[in-house]
């Protein structure tokens, strides 16, 4: 059965990088948006080679740690 996979990496400052695999069309961006919404400011979206073949995409969220 087809599998959708998202690899989310959170570094020691809380910055999030997410990479998708197995999505079709723009669905990967929608999926990442709903998953990472409000967790940080989007820094960059890099469409991978796979995106054009299999629609994979990598996004990077940046959240600066601040006092609340």
């Amino acid at each position: 059965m087809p599998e959708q996979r998202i690899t989310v990496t959170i570094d020691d400052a809380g910055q999030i990088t997410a990479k998708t695999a197995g999505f079709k069309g723009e669905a990967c961006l929608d999926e990442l948006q709903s998953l990472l919404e409000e967790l940080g400011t989007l820094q960059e979206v890099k469409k991978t080679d796979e995106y054009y073949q299999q629609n994979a995409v990598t996004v990077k969220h940046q959240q600066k740690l601040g006092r609340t």
Partner: protein
Amino acid sequence: MSAVVKTVTPFTQRDLLLEALDELGVAYQEKGNAIMTERVDYYGAQCFIYEQGAYRFQHDSSANRQNYHWRKLNFKEWKTVSAFLGAVEKAYHQAYERLQQRLAEEERRRLEAERQRFVEQQKQAVIQRAKEQGYNVKETRKGNKIQLQLVRTTY
């Protein structure tokens, strides 16, 4: 004639002053806003009195003479008031340095705890949303980084 005078560092912090006296091995007793020392001159125990934001040392003005007849003076190396205050001042500065180091360490720990809380919060938010969206979540660590593998089977 010209002259240069220098005042003693104002002892503004009670805790630091007491720490300095402890460091020097000077016995004392607190009475109201005064710290009575074991140095006793003609008028009685010399003391630090808190006035206008700092502790002022109260003593017989003649007690700065080398040949002053003390009623009680345990520390022969500080025969004069100036010598004693010089030693207190030095110990007070050292106590202040230690306080600064403690505060810096506490601040470093506070910031580190805040950072860890934030990262954990980010992680939990991603996990919760992923589960709500039907993903299986597997968490691993790669050095300082947390990696979450979100996998969902489509039909």
